């Protein structure tokens, strides 16, 4: 029997189960213990595992991440929580210059099994410094894996896989998704890193997205179905390594695609996805691949302006109609 739980509860279950399974797993970050997490993802874990394994830190992102990396270098499996991805910029040196490179530049002697969790995303009127989507930044760096779940089931299954992975994983959650519900298997549930999910099949075009944009694509596909347009919806789920095969196979079938992302359009993640499909399936395309992304602006505070900057279901539907010639 599947349970219906929130994205937040799914993450909490993953953490709890992995900490029970492996004594080397511990949590470190700002407000993760006594406060229960800024977004309450770690709630109740202090009570079960104590202060030795659920560690509150000062506001020192560079050293928090460095502490995780250092402990991983000598065999622990830290889960670092950054309060938001925006604060990861203070830890960029540790993530990019250290976590991502230690294995390579040590000739394979070092392993860095650290999971760095951080919520990101816009839509809550948090203004320019608290509304960013930085997945493309991290996907750019060899040595990092980038995982970005869009459903409670994937949140749980991918977090468990990230914790068990022997590499640094950027685990990017979405602030707006924390309260959304979905079915999650009751039994042991993992989702492999590097495998996209075909949410629904269709023959007319492919909607490619991840994180919260998956929800928009599903709604758009429902509307398009009313017009007789059958959209295939793919949730990439892992940005690095990218499951190009699933995307390419879909496009070879539908001949049209739209990539929907919440990060900035310029040098955004979608550009890389388009590049991959174009290189491998150019001859199958009946139209240029369309991209729907956030406007290239620092996120404004005002609700009306913020919504204007973000992709919408309407935009996906109208782009799809145009692409399908209807």
């Amino acid at each position, binding site marked *: 029997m599947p349970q219906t739980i929130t994205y937040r509860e799914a993450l909490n279950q993953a953490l709890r189960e992995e900490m029970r399974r492996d004594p080397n797993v511990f949590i470190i970050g700002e407000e993760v213990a006594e406060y229960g997490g800024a977004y309450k993802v770690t709630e109740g874990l202090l009570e079960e595992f104590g202060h030795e394994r659920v560690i509150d830190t000062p506001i020192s992102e560079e050293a928090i991440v*460095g502490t995780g990396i250092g*402990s991983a270098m000598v065999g622990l499996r830290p889960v670092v929580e950054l309060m938001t991805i925006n604060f990861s910029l203070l830890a960029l040196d540790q993530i990019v210059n250290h976590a991502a490179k230690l294995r390579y530049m040590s000739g394979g002697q070092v392993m860095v099994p650290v999971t760095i969790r951080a919520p990101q995303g816009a839509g809550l009127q948090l203004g320019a410094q608290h509304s960013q989507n930085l997945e493309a930044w991290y996907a750019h760096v060899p*040595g990092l894996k980038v995982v970005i779940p869009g459903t409670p089931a994937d949140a749980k299954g991918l977090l468990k896989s990230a914790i068990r992975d022997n590499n640094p994983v950027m685990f990017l959650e979405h602030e707006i998704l924390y309260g959304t519900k979905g079915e999650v298997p009751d039994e042991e549930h993992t989702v492999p890193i590097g495998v996209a999910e075909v949410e629904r099949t269709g023959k007319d075009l492919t909607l490619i997205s991840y994180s919260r944009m998956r929800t928009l694509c599903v709604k758009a596909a429902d509307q398009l179905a009313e017009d007789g347009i059958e959209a295939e919806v793919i949730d990439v789920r892992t940005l690095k390594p990218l499951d190009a095969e699933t995307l390419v196979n879909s496009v070879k079938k539908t001949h049209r695609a739209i990539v929907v992302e919440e990060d900035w359009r310029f040098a955004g993640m979608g550009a890389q996805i388009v590049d991959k499909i174009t290189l491998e399936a150019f001859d199958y395309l009946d139209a240029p691949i369309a991209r729907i992304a956030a406007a290239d602006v620092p996120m404004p505070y005002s609700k009306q302006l913020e919504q204007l900057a973000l992709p919408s279901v309407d935009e996906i539907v109208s782009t799809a109609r145009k692409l399908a010639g209807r």
Partner: protein
Amino acid sequence: MDAAEPRLIETKTDFLEMYRKMVLIRTFEEKTPEMYTKGKIGGFLHLYSGQEAVGVGFISALREGDYVIGAYREHGQAIARGTDPKLVMAELFGKATGVSKGKGGSMHMFDVKRGFLGGHGIVGGGMPLAVGVGLAIRYRKTDQVCVCFFGDGAVNEGAFHEALNMVALWKLPVIYVLENNLYGMGTAVYRASAIPDLIKRAGCYDIEREQVDGMDLIAVREVADRAVRIAREDNEPRFIEAITYRYRGHSISDPGTYRTKEEIEEWRKRDPITRMENYLKENHMITDEEIKAAHDEAAARVQEAVDFAEQSPFPPPDALYENIYAP
């Protein structure tokens, strides 16, 4: 010093071993510019000549199982920890037999089975890693310690302050060793630090601290023994400032216009190797023949290292994509 405190290094064997390590490191370092000029070594090359007593003094105070984190002037520290000079030279040559398989270079020597955790090229970047190593030691309740070396340039990085605060707050067995060689690249300490008496920085975090003459091996070793014992037994961090000097430039390409020949000569008069030689001779622990033998043996080992590096293969093209991710 407390009478009950174990006097580490009273034995002649310890003294001679540390002395020979310093000679080996100096000989190794002084060979590398020639190899650089010949085009055998590329990239940056930061030499440890002059600072040997700091690395040897601290690392010789450690046990097997302890950890060392270096910065980018770390060839000598790897050798002090027991890494074969052949593997260090081969790494400098970018060969597959190098200690980091030719993937790291001068700044990224790793010898993990000896607890030597790099080789880090970002100023101050190793300091947060040491917090993590210290945390892991506490987590597992072992009696290991971690020594983390960094330079005077690092004290003005955020990582320095974040890391010191955390080891002090959590009482972790980390010994931070500030190698103050008076210049961060070409900038003298007094031109970069509002408080040039750098040991005061550790005071902000109430970490027990000591300053030591980094040109005096015996003094360094005594301070190191004390720091290691306290870190190991009492699970407390320590902060040591070793005042030292590098004879060569910041890196191989440094023209050295920011300091005078006279200054360098003054510091050479305090050379840690000569000083140790004099001490050993005065105390009848070494003969002139044995001194010569130590230098000859070092020269032979360094030549052997050069030959080994020379004859080793470069990494194959397949190595390009190896070890980006762990299986």
